[in-house]
């Protein structure tokens, strides 16, 4: 799908495909375990809570087994993506994960300011002025629209608490 040049390095598509199939199968097994807890038989009032999820879980595992088998049989050695491409993807995933993970502690606004600022300054290479303008402007507009106008409270941290917002 992606890599066309043979000299580029990166994880093999086959390996990722195998991993995804295994991941889905694992999810299926979790579903089966959960369904067994809820009861999977056909009671007097029709199927019980776990009846459908159980067979759904079984189908997930079965379908993944077939997908796994066909992934392993695959002979073509194309790449999933080049390392460089993956690095670029990770350069978004990692900061987003930090952003999302820090939200319960520092609140949405502070996290957003840092996140937007980081993205524009280091990934986009913008000057400080436009970076700060957007990084501060967006949360302020958000605050006005959501909290003041629509009365939707968003997560806040110690700084907002201190400001009494």
């Amino acid at each position, binding site marked *: 799908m992606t890599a066309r040049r043979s000299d580029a390095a990166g994880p093999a598509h086959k390996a990722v495909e195998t991993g995804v199939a295994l991941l889905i199968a694992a999810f299926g097994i979790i579903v089966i375990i959960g369904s067994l807890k809820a009861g999977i038989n056909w009671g007097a009032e029709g199927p019980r809570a776990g009846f459908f999820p159980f067979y759904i879980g079984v189908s997930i595992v079965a379908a993944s087994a077939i997908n796994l088998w066909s992934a392993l049989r695959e002979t073509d050695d194309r790449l999933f993506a080049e390392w460089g491409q993956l690095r670029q993807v990770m350069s978004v995933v990692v900061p987003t994960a930090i952003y999302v993970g820090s939200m319960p502690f520092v609140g949405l606004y502070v996290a957003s300011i840092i996140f937007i600022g980081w993205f524009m300054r280091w990934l986009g290479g913008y000057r400080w002025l436009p970076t700060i303008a957007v990084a501060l402007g967006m949360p302020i507009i958000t605050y006005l629209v959501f*909290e003041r106008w629509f*009365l*939707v*409270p968003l997560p806040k941290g110690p700084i907002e608490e*201190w*400001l*009494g917002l």
Partner: protein
Amino acid sequence: MKHSILHVALVAVAALCASGTQTSAAWEPVRPVEFIVPAGTGGGADQMARTIQGIVTKHNLMKQPMVVINKAGGAGGEGFLDVKASSNNPHKIIITLSNLFTTPLATGIPFNWKDLTPVAMLALDEFVLWVNAEKPYNSVKDYVDAAKKAAPGTFKMGGTGSKQEDQIITVGIEKAVDTKFTYIPYKGGGEVAVQLVGNHIDSTVNNPIEAVAQWRGGKLRPLCVFDAQPMAYNEAIADGKSWHDIPTCKSQGLDMEYLMLRGIFMSPRATKDQVEYYVDLFTKVRATPEWQDFMKSGAFNTSFLTGADYTKWLETEQKRHEVLMKEAGFLSPGN
């Protein structure tokens, strides 16, 4: 952290905000108050919460805005656990229905009403036994006879939710008249009423507000109310009959009483001042004409309890629900 002008400006703003609030001894909210609804948008509790929000805004009863938030997951468990986790946050109140008792018992989530601070009982919601107007049941007796005559499992009772108030009442009726219904749970009260109009079920125990439109349209017929005395509202609703004209179930030989709580709670560890503030607020809300209209339109029982009386009522109801749920076999395996 942030120096210079920005810092000074921020402090100034903060000071301004602080000076805006009154410095009287009693407590008052200083931030927007979150009003949690442990049920979905559009349901009975949600309607009541949004009515209150509207009244508070319109009559300017509170300096800070009131924000309604629905947390309906797990039959309201999500909302209860959220408030339980917000100790010492006086800016969070919750409106409850019977799921205050039923949800922890049926699902086994770690919650009990004692985890919260009771504020006030706003009203009690009535339950009425409804049948389709095309059916020949004109009294509770006709209805019970028909239910007993029907082949087992074919007489269908519709209701909102599973192992909640509607199904508890259904089990109560089954016990009282010694018969067996097939209970079919639906998502909302309005839907239940329409399923009854469409003859997909044989009877319901809808709240007045959920079925009144169909009654006035001549599609449904009320048989009795599950209360100790008839409802107080005398105004004619349909065919010259008023809510007051609906007999109590007990007087008709169906010995079951059930009322649903519409009450307010606060997060744990609230101070006396804070509780008093909200009691005062809801007393003001109850005095408005909008609230009285709302009570009339839903034929609510307008009992108002606070403090020790309220706690006592809650304790009695908790025990009663434990017994009812246990008898019906609705307790979660974990309990």
